[in-house]
């Protein structure tokens, strides 16, 4: 598959596909030898090479340490496009627009939590809707949903779900201001209506963790992580059916308007950023992103309720990062600060100290970067860097990335076996489906520790703390 593509090793963790044929720029892959071998097993390298052929691409196309095969762009792919000459592509964002992760801290320790663990997890499972076809707890009208799409997390806080401090510690302050609800189709709205305030399924989860290791005490403390054994919570979910429909709708419209015969791959369908359709997609994508922000805000509120129904504690947001998004940002290209449209697909923004996009309380330190592991493995908190701004358009990895298919997972693992394996590590798990547990078995993912080690080694996201799971609710 991807192993017949010529790559050159250009650094300890850096590989290049030199510009050839229709490529407009080089492709760069940040990976260790082990991780690049994983990428050669599928079409990841071909896909990043294809991205390098798109109009208006700046500097180089980037594959991050966790990159694997995706739709059009690889997952773990980053590309920035010139704001005037460049394109915007739904395949560069992904179907699950703003699939994202929120990290919360508590003021209780593992010792206190363990006294009530079953009761807390069961309460959360009852209070936070999950799974497919089950819908959310709240019924809202179409007009209310349009408000959600333009206000994001702020809408949820205004409705009594959580507090102002929550959205202030969220990427984009929990609301992408360019969102326009009118660019979201009636169909997308109908898919979103029953799903607001629900976790979803597949790789989406809610995890109660304990701080396992602190690598950088000063920065950890600034982010609210103060000791090993502190309980934290991670919520991973996205824009549900609404976001999927926005992606499908605009893929269809762009095919009609521009066709795909000129592209290396039909899935790289795109529109010029400056075109009417390009702008409409961007605004609809922002609206879907806001749905995801509101979604996690509601879940945060129910988490607080669930915990406090059992044990009195304080739960605060550390940060909330987007994993599937396109954004207009300023980056240095050829020595000049330039406005570009950065596509991060399965990638986390990783800005260093000083960027105005970072919330004030963290601005001098750098942006918190949250990298979830797979079910049963560690997750990490990193800090963004200036180096990332220089070499990866301020981006780093987003997670473990799959290495085994779901079919293979089901052949090799059984849900109850996976659960007893996790129980041996004292990890408790709850889900609406056994089979879904087998499909997300830890062995089907890349080694998260290796992914994060490379991120730190390259310097595009530096280690702050490591968390290990205690109780997991899988969607």
């Amino acid at each position, binding site marked *: 598959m991807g192993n017949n593509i010529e790559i050159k090793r250009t650094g300890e963790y850096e590989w290049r596909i030199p510009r050839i044929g229709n490529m407009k720029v080089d492709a760069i892959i940040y990976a260790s030898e082990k991780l690049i071998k994983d990428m050669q*097993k*599928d079409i990841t390298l071909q896909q990043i090479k294809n991205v390098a052929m798109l109009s208006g691409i700046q500097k180089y196309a980037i594959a991050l340490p966790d990159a*694997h*095969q*995706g*739709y059009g762009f690889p*997952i773990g792919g980053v590309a920035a496009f010139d704001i005037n000459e460049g394109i915007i592509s739904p395949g560069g964002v992904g*179907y*699950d627009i703003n699939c994202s992760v929120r990290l919360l801290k508590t003021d209780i320790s593992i010792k206190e939590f363990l006294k009530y663990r079953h009761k807390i997890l069961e309460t959360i499972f009852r209070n936070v809707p999950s*799974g*497919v*076809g*089950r*819908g959310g707890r709240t019924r809202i009208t179409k007009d209310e949903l349009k408000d959600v799409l333009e206000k994001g997390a702020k809408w949820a806080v205004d409705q009594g779900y959580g507090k102002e401090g929550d959205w202030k510690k969220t990427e984009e302050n929990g609301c992408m201001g360019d969102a326009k609800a009118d660019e979201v189709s009636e*169909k997308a709205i*109908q*898919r979103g*209506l*029953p*799903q607001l305030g629900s976790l*979803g*399924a*597949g790789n989406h989860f809610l995890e109660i963790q304990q701080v396992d290791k602190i690598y950088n005490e000063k920065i950890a403390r600034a982010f609210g992580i103060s000791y090993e054994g502190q309980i934290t919570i991670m919520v991973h979910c996205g824009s*549900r*059916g609404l976001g*999927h*429909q926005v*992606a*499908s709708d605009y893929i*269809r419209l762009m095919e009609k308007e521009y066709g795909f015969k000129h592209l290396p791959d*039909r*899935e790289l369908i795109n529109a010029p950023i400056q075109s009417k359709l390009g702008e409409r997609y961007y605004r609809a994508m922002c609206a879907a992103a806001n749905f995801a922000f509101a979604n996690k805000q509601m879940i945060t509120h129910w988490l607080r309720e669930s915990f406090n129904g059992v044990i009195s504690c304080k739960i605060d947001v550390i940060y909330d990062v987007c994993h599937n998004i396109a954004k207009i940002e300023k980056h240095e290209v050829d020595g000049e600060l330039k406005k570009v449209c950065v596509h991060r697909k399965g990638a986390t923004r990783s800005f260093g100290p000083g960027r105005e996009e970072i919330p004030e309380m963290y601005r001098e330190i750098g942006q918190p970067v949250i990298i979830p592991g797979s079910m049963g493995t560690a997750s990490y908190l990193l800090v963004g860097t200036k180096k990332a701004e220089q070499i990866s358009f301020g981006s780093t990895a987003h997670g473990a990335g*799959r*290495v*085994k*298919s*779901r*079919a*293979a997972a089901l052949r090799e693992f059984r849900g109850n076996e996976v659960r007893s394996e996790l129980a041996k590590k004292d990890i408790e798990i709850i889900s*609406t*489906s*056994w*089979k*879904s547990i087998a*499909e997300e078995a830890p062995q089907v993912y890349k080694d998260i520790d290796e992914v994060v080690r490379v991120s730190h080694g390259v310097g595009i996201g530096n280690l702050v703390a490591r968390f290990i799971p205690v109780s997991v609710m899988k*969607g």
Partner: protein
Amino acid sequence: MNEKYYYLEHTADAKFQACGSNMEEAFKNAALAMFNIMCDIDRIKNEKEMEVKVEGDDLKALLYNWLEELLFILDSKNIIIGEVKNLKISKMENYRLEAVVNGDDAGKYEIFNEVKAVTYNEMFIKEEVIGEKKRIIIQVVVDL
């Protein structure tokens, strides 16, 4: 192996092939293959019947729109489909598909996967002739 559809290896998503002696049957089996990724479709009590109509500029677009419409029904009505009847495909200035689908409230069943979207990734619709027999094979990758 199921003769109507079967699943192929794919790292991150799900890939299947669906077959039929004609286009209608293959389209029907593609729908069943997709829902069988999400749950055990043999267990679904088919109590809620609906008509579905979609169009497409070519057969691939028709297939894409057909499967997407069924995902739309799942998300907007929380109904999971277990049966497809009276599927008809016609060609006027574009392709049209009409079918009756039958299913039940998704919340009643164990659903182990969420199909997020249909994709054009590796999609094909081809005719195979073995001896006297003609067979249509459809391949689809869905985003999970």
